[in-house]
């Protein structure tokens, strides 16, 4: 397997089998082990933790507060068009 | 008035200023250095305008950028952007055909 990063997508290829961080639209972030990807960035991750950040307005103080909710999935297919960025392992 | 091709106009604008209206209430003005078939554009001496909901405008100056053509809504070649154009208040009640539309022409030195 050639270890060289010549194209951006090579960065994803080199992360196969590793734990990666994915930033998605809708303020979602995923962490999990990468098992598959294609040129559209469709992806399969295992042992996934999803963090969803929601901004809520506190009725009394009318302030914006950041609330995060977490979900876990054993094995997840992710459609590529929702992905903004991917960071390989040991780096986040 | 003869038939012109869109890309011919953009080609003629090489080296001149161009005003780009982009998605999400953004505008970009710069000197057109180059472009490709997807209208990705290289611009220099750039000003980026971000129009906000509260009516304020955020301006950013940049030396040179590669702009993603997918973000472009439309282009105004040879114009230097919102600061140059005097906001003309052209009153026009509605678009119905019997009301003849009075557009006050302002022949800017576009060439």
């Amino acid at each position: 397997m050639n270890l060289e990063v010549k194209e951006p997508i090579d960065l994803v290829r080199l992360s196969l089998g590793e734990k990666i961080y994915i930033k998605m639209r809708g303020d979602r972030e995923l962490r999990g082990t990468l098992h598959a990807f294609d040129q559209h960035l469709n992806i399969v991750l295992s042992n996934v933790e999803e963090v969803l950040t929601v901004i809520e307005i506190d009725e009394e103080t009318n302030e914006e507060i950041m609330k995060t909710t977490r979900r876990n999935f054993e094995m997840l297919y992710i459609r590529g068009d929702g992905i903004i960025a991917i960071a390989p392992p040991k780096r986040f | 008035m003869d038939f012109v091709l869109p890309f011919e106009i953009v080609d003629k604008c090489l080296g001149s200023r161009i005003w780009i209206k982009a998605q999400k209430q953004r505008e970009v003005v710069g000197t057109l250095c180059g472009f490709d078939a997807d209208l990705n554009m290289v611009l220099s001496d750039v000003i980026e305008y971000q129009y906000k909901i509260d009516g304020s405008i955020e301006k950013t100056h940049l030396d040179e950028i590669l702009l993603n053509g997918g973000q472009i809504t439309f282009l105004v070649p040879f114009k230097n952007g919102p600061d140059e154009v005097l906001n003309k208040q052209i009153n026009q009640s509605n678009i119905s055909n019997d009301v003849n539309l009075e557009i006050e022409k302002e022949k800017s030195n576009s060439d």
Partner: protein
Amino acid sequence: MTSKSPSDFLKNIIGKPVIVKLTSSIEYKGILACLDAYMNISLEQAEEWIEGQFKNKYADIFIRGNNVFYVTPQKKRNLQDL
């Protein structure tokens, strides 16, 4: 020297510090490792800035092209890296 076509512009800034601004206004500042026809970008030592505030640091990051608004050379290396 103003580079001409998009590909010339890219050849000149590969390996240089750049700012990548996304359509959502998030900015990534880092060394441009490579870029492809879809404007997918990979950066090294990248910093993530949201609404002018530093958020995260990534040794490597892949950015999907359809989210990119523009790429621009960083004027001067930011102090954090020195």
